[in-house]
């Protein structure tokens, strides 16, 4: 009987499987540590929570073929400036509310979730809020009584009343504003902010 070639031997492939798995996993761990440090709130990719005190806009970079976030002058939420800790608490309440109300099973956040309702990633900057003066008030009303303030764009799809309190609505708005400042590598492409419309 001929000697068994290497490519047909069980023990060779067993070793390959172990080394490939261990190697890939090791690389993943190293990249994970790097990614997490680069995306901590307060870095360049994910801004500090106090960014909710600022104007957030996007600028198209010809060379990179993508829009990148630009944090501008003061633009307070609810008429006041929040300290970093206050901002973090407000965003935290908003994030928690978005989970407790199960937003992600109709909407997408950062492109993930369900497809029954629009993406919320840059919702704060959406031109659908008409102009920056009306935006905050429209959002509050919409979140607290979505049925009466529904803007269905002719689709008949309405957000249900989720019993969102005033505090929770403020938290959600802060969360949306903060999320809109995250550098998402140019996703979604060709997005025009509310400022571009003005």
């Amino acid at each position, binding site marked *: 009987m001929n000697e068994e070639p290497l490519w047909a031997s069980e023990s060779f492939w067993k070793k390959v499987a172990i080394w490939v798995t261990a190697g890939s996993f090791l690389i993943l761990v190293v990249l994970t540590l790097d990614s997490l440090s680069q995306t901590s709130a307060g870095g360049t990719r994910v801004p500090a929570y106090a960014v909710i005190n600022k104007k957030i806009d996007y600028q198209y970079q010809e060379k990179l073929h993508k829009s990148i976030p630009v944090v501008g002058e003061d633009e307070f939420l609810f008429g006041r400036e929040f300290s970093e800790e206050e901002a973090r608490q407000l*965003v935290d309440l908003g994030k928690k509310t978005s989970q407790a109300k199960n937003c992600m099973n109709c909407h997408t956040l950062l492109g*993930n979730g369900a497809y029954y309702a629009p993406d919320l990633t840059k919702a704060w900057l959406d031109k659908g809020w008409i102009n920056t003066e009306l935006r905050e008030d429209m959002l509050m009303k919409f979140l607290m009584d979505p049925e009466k303030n529904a803007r269905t764009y002719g689709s008949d799809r309405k957000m249900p009343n989720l019993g969102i309190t005033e505090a929770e609505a403020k938290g959600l708005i802060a969360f949306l504003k903060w999320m809109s400042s995250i550098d998402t*590598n140019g996703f979604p492409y060709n997005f025009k902010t509310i400022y571009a419309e003005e």
Partner: protein
Amino acid sequence: MNVTELIEKATTRIKDFKAWVALDSGNLSNGQQLAVKYFSVAVILFVAQILFGLLAAAQFIWPGFLYEFLDFNVNRMVHINAMVVWMLYGFIGSIYWLLEDESQTEIVGLKLGNLAFWVLTAAVTLVVLVYLLVQIGPGKDSSLWLINEGREYIEAPRWADIGIVVVMLIFFYNVVATFSKGKWSGIAGVLTLDLVALAGLYVAGMFYMTNITHEQYWWWWVIHLWVEATWEVLVGVIMAWSLMKLLGVRRKIVQTWLYIEVALMFGSGILGLGHHYFWIGTPEYWLTIGGFFSALEPIPLVAMVVHAVYDSGTHAFKNGNHPALAWIIAHAFGNFFGAGVWGFMHTLPQINLYTHGTQWSASHGHLAFFGAYATINIAFFYLAIQHWRGNVWMGAGIANAWRWKWALGLLNVGVLGMTIAMLVAGYEQSFIERAVEGSSWGGYFTAQNHPSFQSAMSWRLLFGLVTAAGLGLLVWDLLTTGKGETRKAQEITQH
């Protein structure tokens, strides 16, 4: 009518049902008896998955349907959670099914295994009831602990997360202790390491974080590394074992293939995780790494098709369970097309920029979960039924063979039809909402209101009904096939 009468009536009904299905647990080993408990719940959850999927599909067409009673988010959550859980039940059942045969010994910790089954089933029931009856809570930690965590696929409240980990540890103990007492094999080794990864990864998704980029980073560790790595290896293990049993393929061949598949699957799948890190705030190097490794991800799936078809061919399709083998082959192709081809179609960042978060994802999800995981679980249901009835003949000429054939056809046509319908919708969304209108809310609704999107959603519902019909037939067939069959199964020897 009082309670005792009700209970009495229910007991008679159950007795009548048991007499009618005429299954005999005396034909099964202890591990197999535990396995069929898992399979039974899996089938019930499969029915729930399809039911809530139909409700959600209908809401795309009639948005007012069940508004503020069972909203889309509830139906969709039950739809995807029931799917994840029934597949896990199927996997656990399949492993308990092969455990004693593969280890050549009695299962260790049978009582603990039974206890874990009832605890898990009670917990799943309670979670579903809370999903349906309570639905949402205030924006507090208590909602995340008791109602739902509001994160796609892993919505289960935290108390249930902890319970799931405990149940998985018991399951893991049973597997390892049984192999340790009996015989270790290559299949057993791969299975054990895979279960460590599977259970360990779940923990990565159990924490709350304010930073959504970090939270989604870990969330994908569970979802991607489960679905595109550990689950794929798990079905590789199940497939390897069933090819030996169904076709009589030699152990050395299936084990060598299994190692090749593990190398390819983990080698592409672990770093293929990067294709979920394009747009959530993570560094740009993920565009390259994710794009490259996820492009490799279909390769192991091609290997699986080659493997399954080649083995079937060399054994001239001579096998002891026709429905099971048919579903195994459906699995090989379904995994390749659903997970491989449909996944690859929109995995490159240049394409994904437009298709991410549209019906493309739903199209891929439907074909992949069905093709890769539902099919192989169904194959095991048929294997279980055959032995439950005393290893009866399930080859050519079984009574009412049309039922399993039509169930196979309807389920596959139904899912494929939904997949194509959603692909059409996804194309339209990518063009109108993304490319032309720059992903504004207005652009989103322009796309949703477009006739080609709306007709696609109608086709999806129609094919959903075809799928449901196939499932109904499948359940009927599983309950009745082999009933009154007196011939014993064909002898399959290894060669």
